[in-house]
C-alpha cells in the first residue's frame, strides 16, 4: 500500500550503540537493544533518562551522533522522518497535540493522504482517479471512526476534544497508518487512572489488529510489565537492564535505577510509587479493564 514495496507484517528494530549529546550533555549514550518482530518492548526509566530522545532518533526527528538504527536490517541513517513513515515506522507523541484546527475526520483522512497522495492538479480538475481516491479514503476512515466509536466527534476540532478522546483519535490514526513498527510515547500521560487501566486491553487489541512491533515508553511501570514481552531500563542515557519482564523485575540494577527499590512500585499502577500495602497485594492489572 505504501508503494515502496516493503513487506507487510511486524518489523524487527535493531538499535546499536546509539548516542547523542545536547550541548555537552550526553542525553543518550551507547544504547543498544532489539525489538523482535511482533514484540512489545517497554522502555522505562526516570525523567531525563533519554527514553523520548531514543524514540526521537528512531523516528528520525533527532540525528544521532553515533550508532545505527536498523529496521529489518536496513540502516535508516539516510531516511527523513517522512520517509521512515513510508516504510512503516509510526510514532505517537507524548503531548498528543494532533492538529488543533483540524476535525477528527480530517486528521484521519490525513493518514490516508500519506498512503496515497493525489497531485493537486488532478484534485483540482476532479479527475476520475482523484475522485475515486478521495472516496476510498473516506470509506476507510468511516470504518475506523465506527470501530473506535468516534462518530459523535467526526466534525469536532481536535482542540475541542478531551485528552482521552484525542488519544483514541491518535490510536485510530495509527490503525489507518498500518505500522510495522509503532513507537508509543507515554500513551497514558494526562489520562486519569481509571482510563489508563482501560488502556491495557485497548493496546493489546491494537497490537493484534495492527499486527506490528511496538516500542512503548511509559512511566506506568505495572502497565509495562503487564503488557510487554521485553523491557529495557534506562538511566542517565544508558541501558542498565534489559530482558523479559520477569528477569528485569528481579534485576537489582533495574530496581535501583527506576523502580525505586520498592517492590510496591511494581504492582501499583500510577505515577506515585507510594501506594497502600493493600493495593500492592493485588495481582497485576490483568482483568481490570476487560
Amino acid at each position, binding site marked *: 500500500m505504501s508503494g515502496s514495496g516493503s513487506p507487510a507484517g511486524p518489523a524487527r528494530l535493531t538499535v546499536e550503540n546509539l548516542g547523542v549529546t545536547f550541548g555537552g550533555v550526553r542525553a543518550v549514550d551507547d544504547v543498544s537493544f532489539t525489538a523482535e518482530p511482533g514484540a512489545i518492548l517497554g522502555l522505562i526509566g526516570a525523567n531525563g533518562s533519554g527514553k523520548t530522545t531514543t524514540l526521537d532518533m528512531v523516528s528520525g526527528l533527532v540525528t544521532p551522533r553515533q550508532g545505527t538504527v536498523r529496521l529489518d536490517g536496513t540502516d535508516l541513517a539516510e531516511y527523513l522522518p517522512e520517509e521512515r513513515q513510508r516504510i512503516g515506522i509510526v510514532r505517537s507523541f507524548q503531548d498528543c497535540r494532533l*492538529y488543533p*484546527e483540524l*476535525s477528527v475526520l480530517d*486528521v484521519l483522512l490525513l493518514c490516508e493522504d500519506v498512503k496515497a497522495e493525489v497531485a493537486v492538479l488532478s484534485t483540482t480538475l476532479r479527475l476520475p482517479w482523484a475522485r475515486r481516491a*478521495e472516496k476510498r479514503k473516506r470509506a476507510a476512515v468511516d470504518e475506523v471512526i465506527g470501530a473506535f466509536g468516534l462518530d459523535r466527534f467526526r466534525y469536532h476540532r481536535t482542540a475541542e476534544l478531551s485528552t482521552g478522546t484525542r488519544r483514541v483519535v491518535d490510536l485510530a490514526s495509527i490503525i489507518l497508518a498500518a505500522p510495522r513498527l509503532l513507537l508509543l510515547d507515554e500513551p497514558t500521560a494526562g489520562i486519569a487512572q481509571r482510563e489508563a487501566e482501560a488502556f491495557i486491553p485497548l493496546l493489546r487489541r491494537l497490537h493484534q489488529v495492527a499486527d506490528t512491533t511496538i516500542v512503548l515508553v511509559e512511566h506506568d511501570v505495572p502497565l509495562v510489565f503487564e503488557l510487554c514481552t521485553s523491557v529495557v531500563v534506562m538511566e542517565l542515557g544508558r541501558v542498565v537492564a534489559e530482558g523479559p519482564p520477569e528477569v528485569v523485575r528481579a534485576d537489582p540494577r533495574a530496581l535501583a535505577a527506576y523502580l525505586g527499590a520498592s517492590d510496591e512500585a511494581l504492582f501499583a499502577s500510577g505515577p506515585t510509587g507510594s501506594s497502600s500495602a493493600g493495593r500492592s497485594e493485588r495481582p497485576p492489572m490483568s482483568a481490570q479493564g476487560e
Partner: protein
Amino acid sequence: MFAIAAPNFVLLQGVIIGLGYGLLAVGLVLIYRTNRVLNFAQGQVGVIAAVFLVKLTADFKFEYWFALVLSISLAAGVGALSELVLRRLFNRPRVLVMVATIGLSQVLLALTALPFIRPHNLYKPVPVPFDLSFTLGSVIFTPGEVLTLIVAPSVAIALAVAVRSTSWGLNMRAMSENADSARLSGVWIRRTSTLTWTVAGALSAFTAILNAPGQTSALTEVLSPDLLLFALTAALVGAMINLTVAFVAGIGVGVLYELLQWNVSSTANQQLALFIVLLVVLVIRVRAIRKDSRSGERSTWQYGATTVRATVDSLRSRISVSGMWLAALGAAILPLILNVGNNYLFSQVCIYAVIALSLTILTGWAGQVSLGQFGLVAVGALVAAHLGGSVPLPLLLLFAGAVTALVAIIVGLPALRMPGLFLAVTTLGFAIFMQEAVLATPCWTVPGLHKTLCTGLPNPASTLIGRPSLFGLGLHSDRSFAWFSLAILLLSIFAVRIWRDKGVARRLVAVRDNELGAAAMGIPVLRTKLMAFGLSGFMAGYAGACLAFSTQRFSTATFDPTISFIIISMVVIGGLGSIAGAVLGALYLEGLPALFGANPTIQFLTSGLGLIAFILYLPGGLGELLHRSADALTIGVRVVQDRLAARRAGGPPGLGADVAPAGPERATLVPKAVES
C-alpha cells in the same frame, strides 16, 4: 567588481538617517518584547507629534521647547491610548493584531488632518531650536541634522538607562521573558504594557521630529514600506529582543543605504543590492534568533483560523449552497445595470477578491504571513504586459500563473527554515524590490553574458495594454470585462473550495498546526509548504494578469507595496481562512471606499476605524457573520417547515410527532447525507 568609495560625509549622512531607523527599530522591539505585537503604527504616532509641533510654533507662536514637550506628550498619550484600545486583542492570533495596527496607523493618519492638529500651512518646515551647521567634504550639514546627531543618541542612552534601572524596565524585561510568571510574581502587566506603549510613542515622536526638517512637509505617511522595511530589518537583527543591537543595526542600515546611494548609479541596482544584503543578514541572524527566542515564541505567532467548517445538517448546507448560487446569479446580472465606471469597479473588486483568496491559502491555511502578495500580483501583470496581444487569453493566464508560482516558491524558500516574522520581512522586501527594481527597469544586461533581458515594464511611467478577446469575444467594453472577471472569480472560488474539501487544505493546516507531528505522520513538510506558496502564487499570478487588462494603463506606482497591507486586511476582515470571507473582505475594502468617493478622510475612517472595529468586535470576520446568519436562517426555515408539516398532518397527534421531530434531533439523524 568595483571599489567602494566611502567618504566621511557619506558615512555621516548614513549615520544621521540611520539614527532615525534605529529609534524606530527600538520602538518596534520594545512593543514586540512586551506584547509580541508587530506595531505597524509605530511610525505614524510620531507624525502626529511632528505635525502638532509645527501647528504650535507656527500657528500659535509657542516657545519651541514648550511646544516640543507638548507634542511629545501628545505622541506618548496617543501611544498609551492605542495600547488601551488594542489591549483586548493581545491574546488573539498575532496576524490579527498586526492588521489591527495597520488599521490604527490609518486612523492616526486621519487624526493628523484634524483641525486642531493640522497647521494652516502644510509645507511649513518643522522648526529647529538653534542655527548650527557645519561642512564636511562638500556637504553642508543643516541644523536639523546637527540636532539629530545630538538628540537621537541622548534619547537612546536615556532609554537604555531606563530599561536597566527603573522598575518599569525590570517589569518590562520580566514580562518579555514570561508574561504569565511575571504576572504571578506580582508584576502589574497591564500598567507595564501601557507604559511601554507610552515610551514607544515618545520615541516615535523623536524619530518623526528629527527626521522632519529634511522633508518639505511633516504631513507624510510614515508607513512608507521602505522605512518600515529598514526598521524591521534592524529590529530583526536585534532578534526582536536586543534594544542595543537593534539601534546599532538601524545605524548600520542607514550607512549601508547611503553608501549604496553614493556608489551605485541606478536605483534598480541599489534595490537589488539592498534586497540581497537584507536576505544575507537575515539568514545569518536566523540561528541567533531561533536560539534567543523563548520556547513560546513560535506558538504565539500562530493562528486560530478555522479553515473548514463542516455541517452535519443537510438543510444548513442546502441553504449555504443556494445562497452561493443566488449571490453568483445576482453578481452576473449586476453588470447589466451598472454604468461604465461601476462596471470597472466591479471587475476590480472581483480581481481583488481573487488576490485575497490567494492569500487565504498562504496565510489563512498554511499560516505563512506574507506582506508582499502584491509583488506576486506584479509578476503576473508583467507577463500580461509582455505577452498581452500575442498569446490566447486562457494560455496567457495559465502562463502568468505558472511563472508567478515559480517566483512565489523561490520567495518562499527562505521561509522553510525561518520563523513567521522573517517571511513577513522578506516578502515585504520582495514587493519593494519588484516595484522599484524589476518593474522600473525595462531592460537590463546580464553581467558576464552581455545579453540584454527585458523583464520590466516596457514603459515604467505609463504602460498601455489593450484588452484581449476570449474565443473571439471582445472584452474591450467594461461590461464584458466585468463578466470576464466574475467568471475568473467564480472559477477561483470553485478551485479553492475543492482544495478546501478534497484534501489540500487539511495537509496545509496539519503542517501549520503541528509540523513535527505531521512529519512523523509521513506528510512531506517541505513539499507541503512549497505547495502553499505555489498555489498562492499561481492565483496571484493570473489575478495580476487580469488586473493589468482591467486597468489597461499602469505604471510602477500601480504596484505600490502598501497594497499588500490592504490585501492582508481583506483576508483578516473577511475571517482568516474563510473563502466567502475573502470575497466579502475584498468587497468591503475595495468596493466601499470607491463608492464613498473622493473624500480621503471618509476612506481612512471606513478602512482604518472599520478595520479595528471588525477585529475588536467580530473576531471571525465577515465570514463568521455570514455563517451565523445562515445558521439563523436555517433555524427559521426549520420552524416554518415544522409548522407546515404539523398543519398538514392535522388530526391524529401520533402521526404529527412522527413526521416532525424538533430541529436539533433531526440534525443528528442525517449525518451522512452531506457526504455524497
